[in-house]
């Protein structure tokens, strides 16, 4: 499964959820396949996607927040999994695209190419709902759960290596202001 396919399967299910994407490939795929005002692109903040999303989820318990992170990114902020488990927001899901390489910097292998399992690390951190969909059908089912059930969830998805298509639009301030306006005006009720 490619990251683009996995992104598309999520985008087609979205309604009023906040989606936070890690810098680089995940943001490029999300911007190209499903740009919308409720997307929060972290153009910088290397490794911090899961934490940025956690802050939004804790500040706005009435919204559902989905983070799109990568293996390289999450590996440099593993403490975030413990903070997610400790604060345990019901409206939070962390999706990890694991392609076992640092794609943006040239494809150097990450620890998940060897012995480390991010799903096992998430469970060890104390997160109970850790899903490991193996194909598109299972991934669709996982998305349906994180968009309807109480979390926190971690969804660990092995994806193919490969750079995203297209070119990132880096209007950093413009996208931030658009996101802030969209979030400020959205009051859909409990984790709609």
């Amino acid at each position: 499964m490619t990251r683009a396919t996995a992104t598309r399967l999520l985008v087609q299910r979205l309604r009023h959820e906040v989606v936070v994407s890690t810098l680089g490939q995940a943001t490029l795929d999300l911007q190209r396949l499903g740009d919308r005002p409720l997307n929060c692109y972290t153009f910088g903040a290397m490794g911090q996607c899961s934490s940025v999303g956690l802050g939004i989820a804790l500040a706005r318990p009435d919204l559902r927040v989905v983070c799109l992170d990568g293996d390289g990114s999450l590996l440099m902020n593993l403490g975030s999994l413990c903070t997610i488990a400790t604060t345990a927001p019901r409206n939070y899901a962390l999706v990890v695209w694991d392609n076992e390489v640092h794609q943006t910097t040239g494809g150097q292998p990450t620890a998940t190419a060897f012995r480390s399992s991010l799903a096992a690390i998430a469970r060890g951190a104390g997160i109970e709902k850790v899903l490991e969909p193996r194909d598109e059908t299972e991934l669709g089912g996982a998305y349906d759960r994180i968009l309807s059930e109480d979390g926190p969830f971690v969804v660990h998805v092995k994806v193919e290596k490969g750079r995203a298509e297209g070119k990132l639009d880096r209007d950093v301030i413009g996208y931030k202001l658009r996101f802030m306006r969209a979030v400020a005006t959205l009051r859909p009720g409990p984790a709609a």
Partner: protein
Amino acid sequence: MQNSGLGNCVNTLGSLNVASQVPVVLVISHRGDLAEFNPAQVPVGQAVERILDALDIRHVMPRSVADLEAQADGLIKLAYTRSLPVAFLLPAELTGGKLG
């Protein structure tokens, strides 16, 4: 946080808070300066003001509670006016420091 915590946050402050103009109020206890006993605290402690300056993060170092009270509201207001982080750097003479 202590200034060691600031050291760990440098990239995020630069590439998230400054780049995206997200204000945040940092309260940093200043280790590694007067009366410091731990050599490992000193290098970042001595660099902390220059780190904040390099990131264009406005900071104050109140020497007394009265000094802090006189500056607190104004610095926090500036953070939101400017949409950038600000920092209170709290020296040992204000906090009493840490005794070995």
